[in-house]
């Protein structure tokens, strides 16, 4: 692979999109950024604007209300972009599976590069997932 990927995996800027999560996964994501787990040692940084981001973290079940927002945020991201599904909800719905309001799993809507299962996943699991993501970007 080229130098772009090599550099990209050393500096992943993350935008966090909550699509109707119960807030558990969001708290676990915050845990990854705290001094105990410190994701910044891999160059991972949480950014406020999706235009600065390389990685889109999606937490929560994709509701019908949220579907256009997810698409819009994804289209606003500059290439190269990576989508990460955090928790069981964006994968298959978790306890909301079969709900009238679920717009389907995330990978039916946008291409997903990494799934981190769990309800919620542990911070260690998130870091392990991101390490695997870095290897695939090599």
């Amino acid at each position: 692979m080229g130098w772009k990927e090599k550099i990209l995996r050393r500096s992943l800027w993350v935008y966090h999109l909550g699509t109707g999560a119960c807030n558990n996964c969001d708290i676990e994501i915050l845990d990854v950024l705290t001094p105990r787990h410190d994701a910044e040692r891999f160059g991972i940084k949480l950014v406020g604007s999706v235009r600065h981001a390389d990685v889109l973290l999606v937490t929560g079940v994709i509701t019908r209300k949220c579907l256009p927002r997810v698409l819009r945020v994804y289209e606003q991201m500059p290439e190269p972009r990576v989508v990460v599904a955090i928790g069981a909800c964006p994968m298959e719905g978790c306890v909301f599976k079969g709900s009238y309001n679920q717009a389907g799993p995330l990978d039916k809507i946008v291409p997903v590069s990494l799934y981190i299962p769990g309800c919620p996943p542990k911070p260690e699991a998130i870091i392990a997932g991101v390490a695997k993501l870095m290897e695939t970007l090599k």
Partner: protein
Amino acid sequence: MNNTLFSFLVFPGFLFIAVIGLLFMGIDRKLSARFQWRMGPPLWQPFVDFMKLLSKEVVLPKNVNKPMFFLSPLMGLSGVIVASLLLFRAPLNPQGAFIGDLVVFIYLLLLIPLSVILGASSSGNPLSSVGGSREIKMVLSYELPFILAIFTAVLKVGSLRMGDFLLYQSQRGALFLTSPSCVFAFVAAFLVIHAKLALAPFDIPEAETEIMGGTLIEYSGPLLALFYLVRAILYFTLTAFLVFIFWGGITFTGWGAVLSLLKILLVLFLVIVVKNINPRIRIDQAVRFFWTRVFVLSIIGMGLAIIGW
């Protein structure tokens, strides 16, 4: 001609200040991490971030004013490069510059907030307009104390040429250590530097958790990288400028170079400490702080300098 090109592009021009500036930004991130009991990113992280941003795509927002959107980062970058060149040429050839290059330096530094304001207002995003308007208010509040603080030193030295600051301080010792007026001026200028760098107590225009990056919200890819580089170069230029004006100047030869680097690093360390022990304040608090506290501080320094202290 060849020599001029070299000094513009390599030393002490673009390449030199860009590398040291990005390194200073890395020091800031590493030290901030250590203040929060974290490991922190490696020291070269800003280089990686910069290269990554250069390799990314530029996304154009719908309502953008294209020429202004593309030109404003270039304007900021050219402003900061020429300003740094004026500053770092002075130690190489103290008598070489024209009289009044200090005034030009202050004007060129003003190009950077101007570029941020223009870029923010041309991007057509309401949050970035909020950031731009905050930036305008910040400029209106910090610029006068900054100029007064510098002109306190000008009164002591009696010259508007940067090289003369070097000569004066090499003969009579550092301004900041020998005259009480310059202590006030130094503190005022030190506080203004935080606002100029948009660091923690005064990162109001960017406010990541509040207006999502504010002025830079619509910028992506190489254009964002240019703003990133401007910020990195400012880290180096402004800390070096404080040392240059108030603390004995800087040199590039012999042990003097090591000593001036240590002085600059100490100022940088103090900047990072203040950044890490302060929360962000509101824009009205910042304006009030600069107009009632810092302005008074610099007026006191000016008054002391006029009566000869």
